[in-house]
């Protein structure tokens, strides 16, 4: 009987990976608004409109995720048969986008839900499973769509209500990654799995503020577990805190003794131009996926960035809990990547 001789768990909630598990390829499919943003040149495909000739917004979102998956497979020169596991999630009830996409791919499927932190959650799980020898190639992806999310979480898309200035804009798009060994790409070096943190925020339009606490908690524990400082990384990225949440995150960490201002950016803030009227920034699973896989992945492949800490954040509420006056618990997962 084989026994594992190396202890992977380090600290309270982190894992160090021994093997070379890389992001072998990545693909991004972005919505029209994202395609007009500052990172438009980084996306593999930009959709001309929100519905791309599908019958519903939900189908359009699924189409985007499927396309991202096939593009990622193509770039890695693999077919669905070569993939051992497909790990994916999205924002919709019962994680239908990922499930319907899995139907098409016909790969053994593990559906996950981490709200907007799904991208990091998928990367974490995929990397750990490959490290443990349970799979050789894993495809992971996530998607979100502004209209399908609004329709489910808030109001019908044509409803005329005045969005407050602090409300973020759910990004439309999908990102997919093939994980495996023996290739070129950023390596998953360590993972810090987040705990659920609830700071008592009840407003579903103030998600950046709600999630900042979880982000700070995970980043803090990552530094403590691995005995590192913010300066270890070229850049620290959060998924979708937006301008408001980003500042709050910086403040919380500063109070705990870690100053991240010098090398910290938020994917939600980077996705849109200020004139695109997205409030303090993007939110949604696609926020972290599009910005990291589109922009930062390229920078890492070009060796402009060598060590990146990606911290995707999610708000784990439902329309029901909000109406029932519950607060919004949040989570953040950190994945450290090196090349």
């Amino acid at each position, binding site marked *: 009987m084989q026994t594992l001789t190396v202890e992977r768990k380090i600290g309270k909630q982190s894992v160090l990976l021994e093997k070379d598990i890389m992001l072998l390829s990545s693909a991004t499919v972005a919505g029209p608004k994202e395609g007009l943003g500052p990172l438009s040149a980084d996306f593999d495909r930009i959709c001309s409109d929100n519905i791309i000739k599908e*019958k519903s917004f939900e189908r359009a979102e699924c189409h985007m995720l499927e396309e991202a998956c096939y593009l990622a497979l193509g770039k890695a020169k693999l077919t669905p048969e070569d993939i051992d596991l497909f790990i994916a999630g999205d924002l919709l009830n019962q994680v239908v986008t990922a499930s319907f996409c899995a139907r098409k791919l016909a790969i053994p499927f593990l559906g996950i839900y981490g709200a907007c932190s799904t991208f990091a959650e998928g990367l974490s799980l995929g990397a750990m499973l490959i490290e443990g020898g349970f799979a050789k190639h894993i495809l992971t992806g996530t998607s979100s769509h502004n209209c399908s999310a609004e329709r489910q979480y808030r*109001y*019908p*898309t*044509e*409803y*005329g209500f*005045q969005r407050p200035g602090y409300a973020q804009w759910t990004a439309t798009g999908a990102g997919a990654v093939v994980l495996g060994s023996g290739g070129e790409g950023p390596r998953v070096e360590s993972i810090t799995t987040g705990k659920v943190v609830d700071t008592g925020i009840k407003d579903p339009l103030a998600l950046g503020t709600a999630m900042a606490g979880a982000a700070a908690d995970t980043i803090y524990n990552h530094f403590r577990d691995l005995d590192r400082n913010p300066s270890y990384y070229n850049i620290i990225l959060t998924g979708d805190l937006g301008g408001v949440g980003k500042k709050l995150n910086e403040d919380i960490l500063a109070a705990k003794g870690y100053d991240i201002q010098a090398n910290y950016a938020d994917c939600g803030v980077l996705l849109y131009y200020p004139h695109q009227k997205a409030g303090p920034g993007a939110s949604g699973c696609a926020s972290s996926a599009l910005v990291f896989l589109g922009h930062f992945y390229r920078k890492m492949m070009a060796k402009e960035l060598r060590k990146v800490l990606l911290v995707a954040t999610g708000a784990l509420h439902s329309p029901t809990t909000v109406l029932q006056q519950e607060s919004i618990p949040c989570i953040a997962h950190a994945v450290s990547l090196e090349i």
Partner: protein
Amino acid sequence: MFGQLILNIYVSLGVPQQEAGNPTVATVIFIAASLTAAGVFDNIAQLAGAGIAVPVTGFANSVTSMAMEFRREGLVTGTGSKMFALAGSIIVFGVVTAFVVGLISALI
């Protein structure tokens, strides 16, 4: 403040028909429904806020937008059943208030 601007338009429509408030209301509802269908109501509302939500235009928009959005879930099970999801409380509480008010006036 923007409410004043929007209301001006409605006033010039409504005042000539002051004798008959009903056609006014129907016309305004039609306009609001059309703007919703055209996809511009929400853009105007972002600017106008309460100015377009408080008049019956807001009512028409909530009904129309729900009807349009849930068409995909069937005319009966989507449009039909979800149409008043947002406006329902206006009707419910309006009726409840009127019931109490009516009872009081009938009994005193």
